[in-house]
């Protein structure tokens, strides 16, 4: 039974707003009294996903839903899609520009970090269509 389901749009390239959605989700979880260790894992996963949307995607959205048993974060973008998923899931592999790296992002830890922090992680990506990630976390 899903009790709360929210959708937040994320704009491509807008570094000033990067982190707003994950901050909002984090606040919501803290108010609900979700255990601190779960909040931490969801926060890291969501923040990485949000930064990815801003840096790599052509824009997308983050869905946050929560039931008494688990928290689900779905991240959907409108492209460009990842050509080699296996490579993208490798730690340290990144296509980020120097500009982005200079801001301290693009270390190639985004997707591996999401996978490591989530209890369940699925990713589907089609070039020209987009990427669809689902992370779930047991409460």
């Amino acid at each position, binding site marked *: 039974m899903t009790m*709360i389901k929210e959708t937040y749009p994320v704009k491509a390239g807008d570094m000033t707003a990067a982190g707003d959605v994950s901050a909002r989700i*984090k606040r919501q979880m803290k*108010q*609900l009294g979700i255990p601190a260790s779960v909040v*931490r894992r969801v926060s*890291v996963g969501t*923040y990485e996903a949000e930064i990815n949307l801003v840096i790599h995607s052509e824009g997308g959205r983050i869905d946050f839903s929560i039931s008494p048993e688990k928290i689900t974060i779905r991240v959907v973008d409108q492209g460009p899609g990842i050509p080699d998923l296996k490579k993208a899931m490798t730690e340290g592999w990144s296509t980020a520009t120097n500009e982005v790296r200079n801001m301290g992002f693009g270390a190639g830890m985004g997707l591996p970090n999401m996978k490591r922090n989530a209890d369940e992680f699925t990713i589907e990506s089609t070039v020209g269509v987009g990427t669809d990630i689902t992370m779930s976390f047991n409460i």
Partner: protein
Amino acid sequence: MRQPVRYFHSVRLEEEKCKGCTSCLKRCPTEAIRIRNNRATIIRESCIDCGECIRVCPHHAKVAVTDPLSVINSFEYKIALPAPALYVQFPQVHHADKIIAALYKLGFDEVFEVARAAEVISYAISRTLINEDRPRPVISSACPAVVRLIQQKYPSLLDNVIDIVSPMEAAARIAKEEFSKKHGVALDKIGAFFISPCAAKLSDVRQPIGIEKSSVDGVIAIKDVFTQLQAHVKGPFTPLEIDRASTVGVRWALPSGEAEAVGMRHTLCVDGIDNVKHALEQIENNRFDRLDYVELLACANGCLGGPLTVENGYVAKSRMNAILRHTPDRMIQKTEIFDNAHEKFRMTEELEPNNAQQLTGTMLERLVKAARIEEIEAGMPGLDCGSCGSPTCRALAMDIVNGHASEMNCIFKLNERISTLAGEMVSLGASTRFSVGGNRDDMSGAEKQADEKE
């Protein structure tokens, strides 16, 4: 076991001075203030004693309660523990020795610089960081407002907070021990009093975190002894024959001073409560995990910007350079003070999360409440104007769900309701006019006039 006084707070409201404006409401970093019945009220469970409200209140209705100087008379032997921030309060005084000498004239038998203890604590932290594997970045525990902020808003970071007591606490313990040995008097006859720039320190003494009982016996505000001290600091300078702190300890008063003293390679210092919150968010997102040590200070300019100081924080910061030029640049304390410091000054109690702002009930009940909060917030104007007495629209939504406020507290919602009601009145008036047997006496004056003209 000793029962701690729940939620002792040094930050208080002087009700008769409060005009019920929204200055403090909007600035409180933990949303611990509400305006009800035209007066501010502080939610005791959520206040972290940071003193932001004291700084912003235009009517000086927010105050920090500290002990008067006379508190020292309750002990036979009195030791002053001056914070290094005291040294930069006096224009044209560039020798801390003069200020220390002046403290003796106020009636203290001994003065022990908190900066000396800061050197010991720096060593203890550094030993712990080198020898033990702690989650990075390790966060300083020296600023009590920051520790309370973490307990409430960032509980997942409590394991990152260093479990070593503050320099103030260490100073009280070392000073009492030294005095007791030197003069052969019982420890319980000796009182140690912190001369404080900080509003949170009295709460930290009365209701300590990480230890069961504080060794500090009183907290006296710098501003309360400033005038008396000023009368004594003008004289000529004669070096004191006591162990002095070095620049390593005195620099703790400056932002980054602690991080430098701890001596780790990758450190960061953040001052000002909003900046601190931002940094804590980032630490939670694992953005700062390459840092070893993070010094977080609730006040802009750190302790020099404390609400109980007299001098402007920026002026104080620049004056510190002069003070440091006249401070020994090498530690001159006896080495036995440092022996086993990382064990001796370790906290003994766990840092517990503070759940004051969480929803209550079973998980299901909390989810229902959260959904209701979202729903109410979506119907609010989203201006976060504070006119309802809650700091944001979301906070009002939470207050409504918790039964502490109603939707009509929102002036925009009230306005909407009044217009709706007025509209209904008009149509009701119109419908009664044409109804059979309408009573003329029920009409308003305006309608009567209009009727009569016809």
